């Protein structure tokens, strides 16, 4: 009988302990799998989100992330300069301000108002209606339309709260030209977007002049476009999506990677310790049986292989079970973390990557081997005659 089949019978003979061991590995394995998904999940999800848009380069006034640093002044001229570059296909100014929507007899709805320069590409997906064409038109997300009770063609009265204007601004009425989905919209956020002139009107400005960032679509290589923009406007900073991810990674995103590293280490150590104890106790209880097998002609390598196979079976079955468990757990944990404010709806903390699966499998294999080392040593050094004698006397 092969070592694996023999180990299987050993496990089946003691179903309670085998089941509990496997379930323990499954639970620990699920946590380990989730930590691996978390380590790169947010960054990968953010990369997907950025790449799903048609913009390759983002231009800001300083190294600060968009919306957290100074604005770009004279945005119209900046956009014109960037658009003139041969490596650039499209450039639009983007500015975001706070918004509240008046509702008759009800509490105001709060959200964000984007002002986007005219261009072939817009940073939203139109669901119904059309894009805003004039300074008194806007597109609104589904949540906003529902909360405000408006549809395409309706009028909506909004009040902007602009960073450049500290006085309370008068309400402005817009026509809803369309309903759109915004990629960076949070689950409870209300977002509206209008033209750059429309936002200037809402902010009580004479004309559109400033932008939080310029969104650029490269004609070819984004890195070349970013370099050209940096050369044309050395006072500004141009970042490709990859560089933007790097900047985000340097910020709070690393927290989850660090947490995942710490928890991965703790989880693997925990699994290693417990499987070692489980196997060691199990082997110690069967010393007489193993000595008898050796006396019957089982080689040392064979009994060692039996113990190793037992470890492989416990970790293997537990590891296989840990994957569906891990996916289910990741779903729940993702839902918890997505309650954080400002997290866009399509962004996920736990994202499946084939690399995570490979690392998970490798860590479990290493755990199975390492956990079996000590019990294998006990079995390999077992004195046959003395053990049998002790067994008979006891």
């Amino acid at each position, binding site marked *: 009988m092969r070592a694996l089949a023999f180990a299987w019978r050993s496990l089946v003979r003691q179903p309670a302990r085998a089941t*509990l061991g496997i379930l323990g590995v499954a639970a620990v394995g699920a946590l380990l799998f989730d930590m691996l998904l978390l380590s790169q999940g947010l960054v990968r999800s953010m990369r997907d989100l950025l790449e799903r848009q048609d913009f390759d380069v983002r231009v800001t006034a300083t190294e600060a992330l968009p919306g957290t640093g100074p604005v770009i002044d004279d945005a119209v001229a900046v956009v014109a300069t960037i658009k003139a570059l041969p490596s650039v296909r499209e450039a639009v100014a983007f500015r975001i301000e706070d918004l509240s929507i008046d509702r008759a007899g009800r509490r105001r709805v709060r959200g964000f108002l984007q002002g986007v320069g005219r261009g072939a590409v817009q940073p939203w997906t139109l669901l119904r209606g059309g894009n805003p064409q004039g300074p008194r038109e806007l597109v609104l997300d589904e949540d906003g339309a529902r909360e405000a009770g408006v549809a395409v063609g309706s009028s909506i009265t909004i009040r902007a709260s602009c960073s450049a204007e500290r006085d309370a601004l008068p309400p402005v009425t817009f026509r809803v030209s369309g309903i759109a989905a915004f990629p960076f919209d949070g689950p409870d956020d209300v977002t509206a977007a209008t033209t750059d002139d429309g936002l200037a009107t809402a902010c009580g400005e004479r004309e559109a002049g400033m932008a939080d960032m310029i969104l650029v679509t490269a004609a070819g290589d984004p890195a070349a476009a970013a370099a050209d923009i940096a050369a044309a406007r050395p006072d500004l900073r141009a970042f490709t999506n990859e560089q933007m991810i790097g900047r985000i990674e340097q910020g709070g995103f690393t*927290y989850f990677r660090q947490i995942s590293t710490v*928890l991965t280490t703790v989880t693997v150590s925990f699994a290693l310790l417990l499987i070692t104890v489980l196997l060691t106790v199990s082997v110690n209880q069967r010393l007489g049986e193993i000595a008898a097998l050796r006396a019957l002609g089982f080689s040392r390598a064979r009994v060692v292989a039996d113990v190793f196979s037992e470890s492989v079976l416990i970790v293997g079955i537990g590891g296989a079970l840990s994957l569906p468990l891990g996916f289910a757990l990741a779903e729940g944990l993702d839902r918890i973390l997505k309650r954080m404010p400002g997290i866009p709806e399509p962004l996920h903390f736990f994202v499946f990557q084939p690399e995570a699966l490979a690392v998970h499998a490798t860590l479990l294999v290493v755990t199975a081997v390492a956990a079996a080392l000590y019990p294998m040593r006990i079995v390999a050094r077992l004195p046959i005659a003395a053990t049998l004698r002790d067994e008979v006397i006891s």
Partner: protein
Amino acid sequence: MGVFWAAVVVAAQGQQPPDILVSRQLAEAEGLGVGDVVDLATSAAGANARPFRIAGIYEPTPDPMQLGQVPREVRMHLPDLLSLTRGPDTPAGTEHVDSINIALTDPRDADAFARDLASRMPGVSARSTSNPSFDGNPFVVLERFHLAIAIVTIVAATVFLLALTIMLVDERRETVGVLRLIGLPVHRILGQIFFEGVLIAGVGALFGLVLALGSERLINEFFQWRYNTALIFVRITPEVAATCVAIAVPLGAVATVAASWALLRRGALRLARR
């Protein structure tokens, strides 16, 4: 608003420039010290820069919301900041500020005050600084996340604990059988096993707490170094320690008793292999 600082002037000359405080991180990064005079400007080009004297280096109040962003900050008196940032068309006294900190006579009135202000001054919003437990608070969310992880860990540990106790109890099958044969009732043996479980779980919980206290400093030092912050990431409070013991000890004792119960239901002769 960004304030840009330019070349360091080592010695002040003439009239004493206004005092500023510089964050430790900025001082370390740029090699600034108390008594140095620096030029500050509101544009990266350094136009209209004005000299300021560093009166002190301060440790910024740790802000978890700015984790990962090294605080390169300068603090100055508000009139100095307004004077530095005021546009040529803005008459003195008409500048704006980002926020106003308000101390209420009764802090419990914070929500009512915020509502009152919002109705009287549309566009101005007031938020209580002592109400962090709302649903979307990032730290409440993180707390829930860590709690969920802790629950999964406890489940995994319980399963392993049960497997181990089943094996350990099985190892003492003959002893238990003999105890039964010499007349000890089941509840007496179960009581002994229970107290043994409490003892082992208690020692294990204490060991776990010692391990946690030891790693607390390591984890804090690592993350404080990594993020260049004075934030405390892990804190083992008496409440946390009590919760751990309150979960671990009963769990260990119950696992031991549950594992033993199946064994004790068997006949004494069968247990003693007679």
